[in-house]
């Protein structure tokens, strides 16, 4: 598996070269959000709005009303928690084409609780006109701007930065509101998103070797959540489903899947792996994934609880299938 570096930076510049209406707005975190290169390439299309996110969001609404396509860059946490009223009344209500490029989704940073966007999906999923994408790899970074552009309305992207693995073929871009089936199976379903998909791929590899039949689906569109792939997957599995997300387990991917199970009357069991109703603290990504249970071993424990089967998998077995010596950002 290849590790790609600063994919969004290159992609944003390429995108702007093809879309003259695209402008970047920065909340003084440009170099931390991979848009320094954009500033150097398109200085007259890069607008610094300072450490004043509320104004930045409403200002973007004004630009969008005049035909520009603003791409707001700062940490995700400052693009929903601090600016919720501006996001809703200035942008979402009038359904304007503003793209929120939110970096450091979930527990991606030693920056600690103030910098960790751990409940953004839950907060944003109930907002009318809003579309939410959760990026899982470099291929999705390369394709998300086109998918977002095709949406008629505002878009929130949980973006990954710096070293990001390429989990999916570069010639198979993400598709709006469609999960990506990574393995097919009939015993259990695993729905994963963001950085959890890489962990889930490790776990499924080992579990499959133990004889379990797994349908693993990577999810990148969190709203809308009407993908028939999800329904078909839930209907065909024997034991139930596990969701795994870089987010709290209330209101995110797990809750979205639970809604589908209930509304479709599927009557299958669901275990939600994610951050369990707690704030988190600052540390390295791998440390936090283990501490808050977003790692492969936690997923395997969930699968054991779901199936009642004991697989005898230890940490060492998983180390063997670590794709790369890919360490924390």
């Amino acid at each position: 598996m290849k590790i790609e570096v600063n994919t969004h930076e290159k992609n944003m510049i390429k995108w702007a070269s093809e879309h003259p209406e695209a402008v970047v707005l920065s909340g003084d975190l440009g170099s931390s959000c991979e848009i320094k290169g954009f500033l150097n390439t398109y200085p007259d299309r890069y607008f610094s709005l300072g450490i004043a996110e509320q104004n930045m969001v409403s200002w973007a609404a004004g630009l969008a009303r005049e035909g520009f396509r603003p791409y707001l860059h700062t940490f995700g946490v400052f693009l929903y928690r601090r600016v919720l009223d501006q996001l809703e009344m200035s942008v979402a209500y009038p359904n304007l084409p503003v793209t929120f490029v939110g970096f450091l989704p979930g527990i991606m940073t030693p920056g600690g609780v103030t910098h960790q966007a751990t409940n953004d999906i839950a907060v944003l999923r109930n907002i009318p006109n809003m579309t939410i994408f959760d990026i899982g790899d470099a291929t999705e970074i390369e394709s998300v701007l086109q998918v977002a552009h095709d949406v008629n309305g505002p878009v929130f992207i949980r973006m990954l930065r710096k070293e990001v693995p390429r989990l999916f073929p570069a010639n198979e871009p993400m598709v709006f509101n469609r999960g990506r089936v990574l393995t097919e199976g009939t015993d259990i379903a695993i729905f994963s998103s963001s950085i959890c998909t890489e962990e889930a791929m490790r776990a499924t590899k080992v579990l499959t070797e133990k004889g379990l039949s797994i349908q693993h689906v990577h999810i990148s569109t969190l709203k809308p959540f009407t993908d028939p792939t999800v329904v078909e997957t839930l209907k065909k599995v024997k034991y139930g489903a596990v969701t795994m997300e870089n987010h709290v387990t209330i209101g995110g991917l797990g809750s979205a899947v639970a809604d589908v199970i209930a509304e479709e009357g599927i009557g299958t069991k669901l275990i939600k792996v994610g951050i369990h109703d707690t704030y988190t603290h600052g540390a390295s990504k791998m440390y936090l994934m283990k501490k808050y249970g977003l790692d492969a071993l936690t997923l395997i424990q969930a699968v054991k609880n779901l199936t009642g089967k004991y697989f005898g998998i230890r940490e060492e077995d998983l180390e063997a299938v670590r794709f790369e010596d890919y360490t924390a950002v």
Partner: protein
Amino acid sequence: MPEKVYSKEEIQEVATRVRKNILRLTLERGGCYLGQACSSAEIFASLYTGILNLGPSLGSMDAIPFPGVPSPDNMDYPKGSLYHGAFEADKDRFFVSPAHYASVVYCTLAETGRISHQAIEKFNVDGWNMEMIGAEHSPGFENTAGSLGQTISIACGTAHARKLKNETGKVFVLLSDGEIQEGQAWEAFQAASFYKLDNVVVYIDVNGQQLEGYTKDVMDIEPLAARLEAFGAKVMDVDGHDIQAMIDASKVEHEGKPLVVLCRTSAAHGIPLLEKRKPFLHFVRVGNDEMDDFKKFYEQM
């Protein structure tokens, strides 16, 4: 057809009729934002007849049923901005931030021929587009302005975009003084100065009061002129009931800076019966004990 040229006396008549119409709505409907009408009638009358460069209205003369909220399937609903004419490079835009001034906007549109007088009868009537606090489908509203402090940022973003497109028309904003307490307003002034948005002109209705009392007692905003100047704006401080002064203020040079016109007003102006209620004039209800006095006053207005 060329736009009508209003004399100062005619502008004053517009203001007086707006005030009178909203007093009528207050008496008929059990209450209205009458204090805001009293403080801002001359500001709105001056803007619509003597300051703004707007094209002829493209909006419906009649009220229309609520056209639905914006959504991917409903983006072509009739916009409130239609009443300000077509978006053209040399024309002005006008954003009203305190959305509870809606009755003043509607009535000024009616007095200036941009909407019918019959449409006013649908004001605050269930199911129609003339809400007491509306959104961007409401006549005269460019955006959804009810959450205070956001419209100045949206207007400045619009002005920024218009500069990038080399448009010559200006972006006017009407603010209330209470909403200057919002931090976002100062973020917007900071950025408007930083981007040298001299195509922004802000009129502030400084009536000195807000829901809980006098602004100086709730959360003082003075010295307002000095604060705005410190944030990089050109500031004019005028009597907000003096039509000529407000028109003249719109013409001062403000190269490289936004222009702010502080309009000092009274929320009882033109209706002295309200004087004794100060500073509690956010929403005026007239009880049976005062109804006859107000009705008599209305008849002789």
